[in-house]
């Protein structure tokens, strides 16, 4: 029997994996997380990118859906190529379908001034 800590929400349920059975999960998302964790673990990636010509120096960005855990550093390398030199809206897509992983890189903040 293997125990994994669910990271879907701050409750941090301890989900049990027994052969093909997944036990002790408390919601649908938890079950899905546990399934993924066995086959291909996925994570949300957040970071910041450079801002030029505004008072603030960095813009926080994220992927809009989870990406495979083993691709985190490759995706990060792509994201670091972004430079923001004009106004941007929260939720605006900065990179479409990054590395063909079906996830977009989006802005977490609005920069207007």
């Amino acid at each position, binding site marked *: 029997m293997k125990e994994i*800590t669910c990271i879907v*929400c701050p409750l941090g349920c301890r989900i049990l994996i027994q052969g093909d059975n997944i036990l002790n999960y408390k919601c649908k998302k938890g079950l899905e997380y546990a399934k993924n964790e066995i086959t291909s673990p996925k994570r949300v990636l*957040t970071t910041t990118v450079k801002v030029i010509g505004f008072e603030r*120096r*960095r813009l926080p960005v994220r992927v809009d859906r989870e990406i495979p855990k083993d691709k985190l550093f490759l995706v990060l390398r792509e994201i670091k190529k972004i430079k923001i030199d004009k106004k941007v809206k929260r939720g605006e897509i900065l990179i479409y379908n990054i590395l063909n992983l079906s996830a977009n890189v989006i802005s977490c903040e609005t920069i207007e001034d």
Partner: protein
Amino acid sequence: MVKLNNFDLVIVGGGPAGLFLAKEAKKKGINVLIFDREDRIGGILKQCIHTGFGLEIYGKDLTGPEVIENLKEEIKNLDIPIFTKSMCIGFEDGKLYFYSPKGVIETKSDYYIFSLGARERNRGSVFIEGDRPSGIFTAGFAQYITNILGLKIGNKIAILGSGDIGLIMARRLILEGMEVIGVFEIMPFYGGLPRNIRQCLEDFDIPLYLSHTILKVSGDKRLKKIFVSEVDQNLKPIGNLKEFEVDTLLLSIGLLPEIDILKKDSLKIDSKTLGPFVNQYFLTNKEGVYVIGNSLTIFDLVDKAMTSSLNALDGILKGKRIWNKDFIKIKKGNLIRNFVPQIIERDVGFVKIYYRVSEPIINKKLYLKEDNKIIFEKKIIAKYPAEMDEILINTDLIEKDEVILEIL
């Protein structure tokens, strides 16, 4: 001096708790004004670029900046004046003073809300002997340098304390290309949320050293070495010192509610939360003064710091400016670390109590008792000190002046 005396409510601190309360208060017709000392509102959430926020309020797993963007959007059309770059410098005779780009501002209103957030414990709080080189940061300040300023804090990092900020920073620094050699925790259990142990440490194979602490540091200009010792059950160092070569040390050793501006006179402080004593409306013993968010007590989740502030709004809507003379005091019992509120009014129906346990609890029972009469009981399957739990108790059942909250 600019005088602003025509507001019902002045909120000091435009972080998540202050902004959330301002929005809800304005919707109820309360004329509200916000002051914030920074150039951008949002408080510490601006630098919390990881996800894990907003699940309760927005039903989505958001980053800190996204929660602030949501709040900004919600208050945009509510016509709430916000004074940024305005630092609270004094509170005298029921008047608040701010230092702002418009000069000194004086405000007087019936109700004040302080949502000032928290400060980090630093090296002085844990007594690490040795040199005083550069390269030793509190974890939250390192987060500011990394996420807001976009600067690199070092190359080879050690982290003291396994609180959530330290765990989040461990992952963050790894992703930014730094090396994190380990997290050292003096207690036999970790301080952060289980999910952060999983996704911040285990995901990146960062070792967690429980029952270990850093006794000494050395380095001429920049930090060069830390000296680590294992500790026994009484937290006393045992065995030989182990040396680790690092150029940076992050301290993630806890937060303290920030209420200095109120402390200098008669504010009653709770020695357990280190925030103010409050009743169920989060009203302090100072007339018209409410304290919410992390300046009241350290919350585990931002959502809770925000929604719990509605207690203060409830008090304001009921016109509460001072404590009732007759109240019930809650005493801290077995395995309880702290709780708010510390006092409650009599016969007011159901009241929510937020509490933390003092060590990991497995299969025990929480009680609120009056002598031997049980007012409330609840089974606790598993609870960590990092989590804050909440219970609803019926004040109508309480007859005495004192009740005790305990786990057996």
